[in-house]
């Protein structure tokens, strides 16, 4: 049976740099089902990206993950690496922010894409893979005349589409988009997010969107998890959380995102890191 739920149970992730262990994420419990969308919001250093990477076990060596991350009934953290490969990409896809770094600069989009498909469907013929590639690129509104372009010849928005298509090629049930539209301008960002939502609905994906932008989160996700320096401070239905934030940090984040002004006429800001709790080091 296809796993229908990706869950994090009491997950604590600790980096071990040379000096001393730093907890990137502490006691986080959250979950997303297939066909649903979850937003993880936080500032840089909040550990929001760490969570996504932990699900596909792509954290740097020496990182300790405690708790359980389950995909259906499988505990991802206890799988041998061999079996993990059947999950990474195939069950849980990932789209990163930097599309230029993630695509191979010397191959055309088409050949990279066909390669990906054939990798995940061993035994598939070149022409069949090519046909499938065509279909998928169409699904993502990538014009056919762009197929034989090289990554650097495409706009950021177009590259992000390719990244999404590549992530979807193996037919995952879950997709994690980590700040995947942060480098794009307003219009492309909106288009890519709407595209993600469309694909999510048509394929019934479980979608996790990681972003620092509440506007993005509000647009795409049914549920939101707010991370502040490694702590999950709030988790619930997006509309409710943003309309009635309970935690001080979420309240502040909402005010900042709305560009509210203080009495002095300046924009509202969150207390700066320097003045925050020094016992909580910022994740590198």
């Amino acid at each position, binding site marked *: 049976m296809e796993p229908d739920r990706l869950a994090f149970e009491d997950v604590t992730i600790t980096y071990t740099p040379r000096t001393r262990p730093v907890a990137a994420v502490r006691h986080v419990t959250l979950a997303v089902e297939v066909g649903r969308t979850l937003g993880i919001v*936080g500032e840089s250093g909040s550990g929001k990206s760490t969570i996504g990477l932990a699900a596909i076990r792509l954290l740097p060596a020496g990182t300790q993950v405690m708790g359980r991350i389950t995909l259906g009934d499988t505990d991802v953290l206890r799988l041998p690496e061999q079996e993990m490969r059947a999950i990474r990409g195939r069950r849980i896809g990932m789209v990163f922010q930097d599309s230029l770094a993630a695509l191979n600069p010397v191959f055309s989009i088409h050949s990279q894409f066909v390669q990906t498909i054939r990798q995940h469907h061993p035994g598939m013929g070149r022409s069949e893979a090519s046909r499938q590639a065509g279909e998928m690129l169409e699904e993502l509104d990538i014009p056919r005349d762009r197929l034989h372009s090289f990554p650097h010849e495409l706009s950021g928005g177009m590259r992000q589409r390719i990244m999404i298509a590549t992530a979807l090629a193996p037919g995952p049930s879950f997709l994690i988009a980590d700040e995947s539209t942060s480098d794009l301008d307003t219009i492309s960002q909106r288009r890519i997010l709407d595209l993600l939502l469309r694909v999510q609905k048509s394929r019934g994906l479980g979608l996790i969107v990681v972003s620092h932008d509440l506007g993005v989160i509000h647009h795409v996700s049914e549920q939101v998890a707010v991370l502040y320096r490694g702590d999950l401070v709030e988790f619930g239905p997006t509309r409710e959380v943003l309309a009635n934030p309970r935690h001080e940090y979420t309240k502040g984040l909402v005010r900042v995102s709305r560009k509210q002004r203080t009495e002095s006429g300046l924009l509202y800001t969150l207390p700066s890191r320097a003045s925050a709790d020094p016992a909580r080091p910022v994740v590198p």
Partner: protein
Amino acid sequence: MKSSLALPIDMQKRPLIHRRFWNSDPRRRFTSNTLAMVSLCWLFAVLAAVIVGPWFSVDPNVADVTARLKPPGADFILGTDQLGRDMLARVLAGGRVSLLVAVMATAVSLTIGVFLGVVSGYRGGFLDDAITRVFDVLLSFPTLLLGIIVMAAFGGSLFTVIAATSIATVPMVGRLARAGTIGIRPREYIQGVIALGIPTSRILLRHVLPNIIVPVLVLSTGNMGRLALAEAGLSYVGAGIQPPDASWGNMIAEGQPYLQYAWWVPVIPGTVLTLVTLAFSFVGDGLRDAFDVRELVVQGDGT
């Protein structure tokens, strides 16, 4: 460097940079590289020996026909050559020449190569095209051939050997410096100082140079072995250091006929030369691996 701040900030800075180097990952990676560290120690030992040694050994050019081709032993630690000269003294004296050439040629090629590379990469346009073409032409000649041409034109002396080997190395250094400069020219921190109206010379010296120099220095270190080898090659074919003055190259050349029955005459300078060349390569490789990730340039603080 003439700093604009002869003030408290500057005073805090010096020990800081030193400590930063010592705590840096490249330093750590390098010192944990056994081969590179052994090579480095060997090079320092050779360097110390050729600097200090000749003061304590006999005159390397005094021949003693009564003591020709003596094998290594109690009287002569490394034996004597076909003219009865002390091999140890000659290896040390020859080493002075070889290492002097390597160090001087490196210094010269670094200075000229970095200057040309940085200026052409930064300026671009016609100047860049011209300098690049000259580099290409020079690079298309084998080092030895280039050396022989220079020696043929100006005669064999220490100075011309250094000049000849430098000319062959300048384009390698220059190309690397140019590539680095072109890579960082569009970076915002360079554009930023241009936009502040900082004079170009200062931009090149304080902003471009420190950010491109590491790979250039790494390359030059690895190259020093090749330069010592080039000197030996030139001397070997008779275009370099002229007998009776010793050089590892002409020692090998002169000793070659005796390989059958007095192996030590060519083999000892040859072995030392090989070990020195290898050691430079290993140190160069170690530095390259140590600095490969540009540690001091932090990419970002992604979560």
